[in-house]
């Protein structure tokens, strides 16, 4: 309780500090270079100066925070990846040589590619189907809310939910996990699903698909509604049936949005860590890059060189998407 009080105090102090900074610097700037109520060359000179300085006062705190928390770490990670475990001695590409010879790393790369292939595709697919179907029924919004709900649940919480579903009891005893109960009901024999090498990857992926489908659905549903009515009406007049309209008229018009959803989920997949940590902690050949990296940060007192090298691999995988995003954003900016 005391710490919560402390937290709220800090929050108020933080907000006050922001207010004081923004009002204070602005007040000082206006005092140093007054332009209000003045006229002549002096006033316009002052106005020019304040207009040149003010954007940087506005941006200052944000830029400093971004520099410290995101830009500096990226540069420092690149440096650390070429240094030894404590980050002091330069070791060249030794970390990378170790990495590519490490069985666990290759396992993680393989698993990550599996995740990248399956999760974005299925989440987008289900999202699109649900978006298209719910648009046609009166209780569509309720359905959407329920499917969207897992978005609010933490990866760890979701892992517990699904671990309960995959729960395994020896054959002959009553199963309390839903999946095994169904398997037994249909005459199969129960399995400890998360310990089956290779296949367990898919059981973990289900969790992320379950969470991300809601995201895909919301974005794609908005895109579907943005399709001009005329194009659909024209197709109806030409005698197209429902499926033809969906695949030949609607889908082509929302390709851009589908790509956005796909890439956003791809990035989430690359960073996935909590689910693997909570479900298997990389055992039974289910390791992924992000969890392996976390492992090396602390394993044996922490090997920052190897950890940073793995982080760099994740970063390299993200770069194409980053470039694509920046190009799209700049294109859009030019339109303004």
């Amino acid at each position, binding site marked *: 309780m005391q*710490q*919560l009080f402390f*937290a709220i105090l*800090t*929050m108020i102090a*933080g907000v006050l500090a922001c207010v004081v900074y*923004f009002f204070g610097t602005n007040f000082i700037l*206006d005092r140093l270079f007054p332009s*209000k109520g003045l006229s002549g060359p002096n006033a316009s000179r002052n106005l020019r100066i304040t207009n*040149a300085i*003010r954007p940087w006062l*506005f*941006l200052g*705190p*944000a*830029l400093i925070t*971004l520099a410290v*928390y*995101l830009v*500096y*770490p*990226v540069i*420092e*990670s690149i440096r650390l990846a070429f240094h030894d475990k404590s*980050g002091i001695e330069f070791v060249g590409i030794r970390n990378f040589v170790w990495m590519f010879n490490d069985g666990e790393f290759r396992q993680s790369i393989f698993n990550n590619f599996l995740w990248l292939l399956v999760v974005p595709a299925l989440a987008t697919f*289900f999202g699109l189907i649900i978006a298209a179907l719910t648009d*046609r*029924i009166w209780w*569509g919004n309720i359905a959407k*809310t*329920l499917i969207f*709900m897992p*978005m*609010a*649940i*933490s990866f*760890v*919480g979701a*892992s*517990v*939910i699904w671990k*309960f*579903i995959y729960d395994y009891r020896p054959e002959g005893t*009553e199963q*309390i996990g*839903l999946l095994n109960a169904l398997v037994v009901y249909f005459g199969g024999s129960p399995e400890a699903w998360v310990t089956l090498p290779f296949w367990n990857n898919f059981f973990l992926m289900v969790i992320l698909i379950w969470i991300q489908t809601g995201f895909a659905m*919301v974005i794609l549903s908005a895109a579907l509604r943005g399709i001009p009515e005329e194009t*659909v009406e024209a197709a109806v007049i030409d005698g197209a049936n*429902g499926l033809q309209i969906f695949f030949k008229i609607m889908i082509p018009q929302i390709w851009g949005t589908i790509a956005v959803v796909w890439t956003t989920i791809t990035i989430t997949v*690359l960073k996935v860590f909590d689910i693997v940590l909570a479900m298997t902690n990389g055992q039974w050949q289910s390791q992924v890059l*992000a969890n392996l990296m976390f492992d090396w940060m602390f394993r044996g007192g922490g090997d920052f060189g190897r950890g940073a090298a793995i*982080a760099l691999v994740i*970063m390299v995988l*993200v770069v194409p998407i980053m470039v694509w*995003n*920046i190009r*799209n*954003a*700049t294109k*859009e900016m030019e339109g303004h």
Partner: protein
Amino acid sequence: MIASSRSPLAWVVHLSVALLVILWTVPTAGLLISSLRDKDQLAVSGWWTSLADSTQNAVFRAPGADKQVEKNGKFVISGNVLEGGAGEVAAFGSSSLKPGDFEPGQTADLNGGEKLTVQADGSFEIVSDTAMEGTRGQRIFYQATVPSRFTFDNYREVFAAAGIGASFINSLTVAIPSTIIPILVAAFAAYALAWMKFPGRAILVAVVVGLLVVPLQMSLIPLLKLYNGVGLFLGVPAKTYVGIWLAHMGFGLPLAIYLLRNYMVGLPREIMESARVDGASDFDIFVKIILPLSFPALASFAIFQFLWTWNDLLVAMVFLGAGNEELVLTGRLVNLLGSRGGNWEILTASAFVTIIVPLIVFFSLQRFLVRGLLAGSVK
């Protein structure tokens, strides 16, 4: 839209949506129902059977020979195996291998020549022709049908023993300042990037978009080193709440700036121009006009940031530590999965405590969340 509401196709649509909704909600429903069940029932039967009676194997030790009474020349020990509890005896037996050999009302022969009868209501009689001996009573094995029972006991237990209460406070301590503090910082920056003219603006916007996708993992090691250095230099611990608040602010800023900038760019230019003609400075325009108008976007970001900081595991593990005192809810849950992996009554109740706050936020403020998602995905 296309299919008329009476056609068979419409039924297919209704059915498939219903199926998908069930698929998506059943996992959470199972967790909630399980967390409310009696822990003995939870461990032996699936939650989907929770409304039906469950059968449990149990054992009861009858009183010793000193409790026997003589009746019509026979020695009798009597009592009730259910001890007044709810339920019914479905079957009973005299050995642990065969707890279901006899129907209620039947009589079983025991090793010592005694006869054991158990009724459905649990009352039993051990009858012997000779006086019974020994202080340890006969063990009676039985299968009881117990009516389903729902209880808050699991929740009481996790708050009292599993440390969930303390973690709940920790999570709040992390999430609230991390949500509120970045808002003003981001709003000012977003306004500068949206409406102020200065050299390098386009590059800065590109940088923000680029930082949007930088994997968090990249930052962890350098920041941990930085924090250790600062901690050593100032003589304070490296892992503090202040550290994690600032970290969450740093990681949340790209999305915040991007979201707010997109929103502010869409505001009508005329408002700002007429204000400028009236002699208002950029600062006045921002504080008096833009900030109030941007409320929906600010709310969207606040919800995102709150959900993200509340649900986060990685940042908390690295910057706050994994000690018992400072664990946030997600960290505590991971720990419980390791140490109490089989105790589903603890796990289900704890999991529900961790997801209840985000769910409340989600259901009450969903409108803003959707709006934020739509504005925040890079188009």
